[in-house]
């Protein structure tokens, strides 16, 4: 655990009954960061979030927040906010009363309460409709209320469950900007859970990619996108040609294949995006078995001695016909170097 760690999960294991959802997870997050937990459904990201919020008791391991072990602290005393995917607004209360809910429990004096609620609503850009019920608001407005409701509590950490998934494309962009602005202005440490890599890439400072209850990779969006280190992450961010490496050679269905350039170091695997495959020249030969137009580019599926290869070529270049045999190459210099391919 590093010195400046604000939130740290230490050997955290979470289970529903006997089925382990998150296994021996270690993670440390700095103050003021915007973190994304990224992964497919069932990868343990939401479970981890619920454990941080205190809605789920870990089987083992500890959670430390701001220097205090909060593993056994009740959810209502953790000072951790959560914006639910469904927003979970109280249907019987007005917008104002929804935001005031937590403050009333703190027995805040009336004038101060009103001021803080109004500030909270202003932060999320919602100053009208304070007397309306949640059902009378649009999805985007409901989410702003949910966000304000958590923000006025001045939490140490704010969690957001799939914050953009219920919004349409236009609102998604708006809310993304909004969340970044709120984070900048408040300096709040935020973690959001998402299955959408685009969402994670555009919003987060750091991305924690999870799969099967384990962390696959932690890194900046650039790291994750350009330098995946595991087969899962590579596949997830679009490296469609993934090979294990054995004795400095590519392990293919037809045995080991030697690449033109030497493979430096001892990676477990190499991966290429379709666009990284060099078409028209090279030591390998393949037959075009599929081709599709993709706007500025054209995608090809090749059958080769290396197995199936996905290639993507600028649409202005040579167009290959199905059945045609083409030379290609996998340039080592451009490949993502994988440490784990199983």
């Amino acid at each position, binding site marked *: 655990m590093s010195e400046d760690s604000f939130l740290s999960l230490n050997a955290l294991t979470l289970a529903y009954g006997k089925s382990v959802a998150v296994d021996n997870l270690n993670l440390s997050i700095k103050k003021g960061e915007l973190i994304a937990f990224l992964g497919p459904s069932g990868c343990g990201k939401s479970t981890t979030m619920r454990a941080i919020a205190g809605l789920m008791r870990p089987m083992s391991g500890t959670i430390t927040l701001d220097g205090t072990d909060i593993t056994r602290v009740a959810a209502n005393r953790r000072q951790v906010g959560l914006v639910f995917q469904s927003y979970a607004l109280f249907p019987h209360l007005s917008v104002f009363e929804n935001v005031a*809910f937590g403050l009333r429990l703190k027995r805040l004096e009336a004038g101060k309460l009103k001021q803080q609620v109004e500030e909270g609503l202003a932060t999320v850009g919602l100053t009208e409709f304070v007397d309306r019920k949640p059902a009378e608001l649009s999805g985007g407005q409901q989410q702003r209320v949910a966000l304000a409701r958590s923000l006025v509590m001045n939490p140490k950490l704010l969690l957001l469950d799939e914050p953009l998934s219920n919004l349409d494309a236009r609102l998604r962009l708006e809310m993304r900007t909004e969340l970044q602005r709120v984070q900048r202005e408040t300096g709040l440490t935020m973690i959001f859970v998402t299955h959408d890599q685009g969402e994670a890439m555009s919003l987060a400072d750091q991305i924690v990619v999870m799969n099967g209850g384990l962390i696959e990779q932690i890194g900046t969006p650039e790291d994750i996108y350009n330098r995946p280190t595991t087969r899962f992450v590579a596949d997830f961010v679009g490296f469609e040609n993934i090979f294990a490496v054995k004795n400095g050679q590519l392990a293919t269905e037809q045995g080991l294949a030697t690449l033109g350039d030497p493979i430096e170091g001892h990676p477990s695997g190499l991966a290429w995006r379709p666009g990284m495959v060099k078409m028209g020249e090279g030591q390998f030969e393949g037959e075009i078995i599929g081709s599709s137009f993709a706007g500025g580019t054209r995608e090809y599926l090749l059958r080769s001695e290396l197995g199936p290869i996905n290639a993507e070529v600028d649409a202005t270049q040579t167009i290959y016909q199905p059945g045609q045999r083409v030379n290609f190459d996998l340039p080592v210099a451009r490949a993502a170097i994988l440490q784990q391919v199983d």
Partner: protein
Amino acid sequence: MTARLLSYGVLTLVLLFLIGPFLIIVAAALSAGESLAFPPQGLSLRWVFKVFEIESFRESFGLSMALAIFGTLAALLLGVPISYAIARYRLPFGETLRTIVSAPIIVPGIIVGLALLRYLVIPLDVDIVLALFIAHTALVLPYAVRVVSASLENLRSDIEEAAVLLGSSRVGAFFRVVLPNIRGGILAAFILGFVTSFNQVPVSLFLSGPGVRTLPIDMIWYLEITYDPSVAALAALLAFMSIAIVFIAERFLGFSRYV
């Protein structure tokens, strides 16, 4: 066109079948004659006034009211937590619990009444009023659980978690965010329970003793001795009372949404 006429014809017959007896009772209640008869002999309100003078009706009305109110309240006191437990926790015996709670609807009232008499009142020497109270609570419980469960199912459970994360305790969350949102369901359950209990005959029949009779039982008993139109007058008054309750309930909380 013929099909349409036919459907109107059938509709009229069904309505007549449903409303007919009620109209006959109302007509009989307004009779000026000495005995229960239809068509009525002349028109007067004398039997309507007579109802209020009959001592036993006043007593049994009081008992029925008390049973309906307190029996239903007790059923809700049990039913709301049961419904909540069934809805929120995946209880290993949840389905069994649901079946047990619904049993009084399925088991004929005669059997419930006899069982209570034979195994509660006689061997344990339980007070008749207490036995009636227990019986009515048990009879109303299935309705309470059903109606309250329906409104709980429409309520997302994450609002409780949201309340907890805003500083509320688990119990506090129930009172602050669950209860206010199922208020309509609870009121509907109360009205349904009240009417069910008030109109209950077969169970009460077994548990009525000397001087302790619910209103419907008292009416049967009265009819066996005195065949005058006051029973019809009382029946009409009770019907109007039920209609008024349901009308008000529908008007103010959309009763039919819940039942």
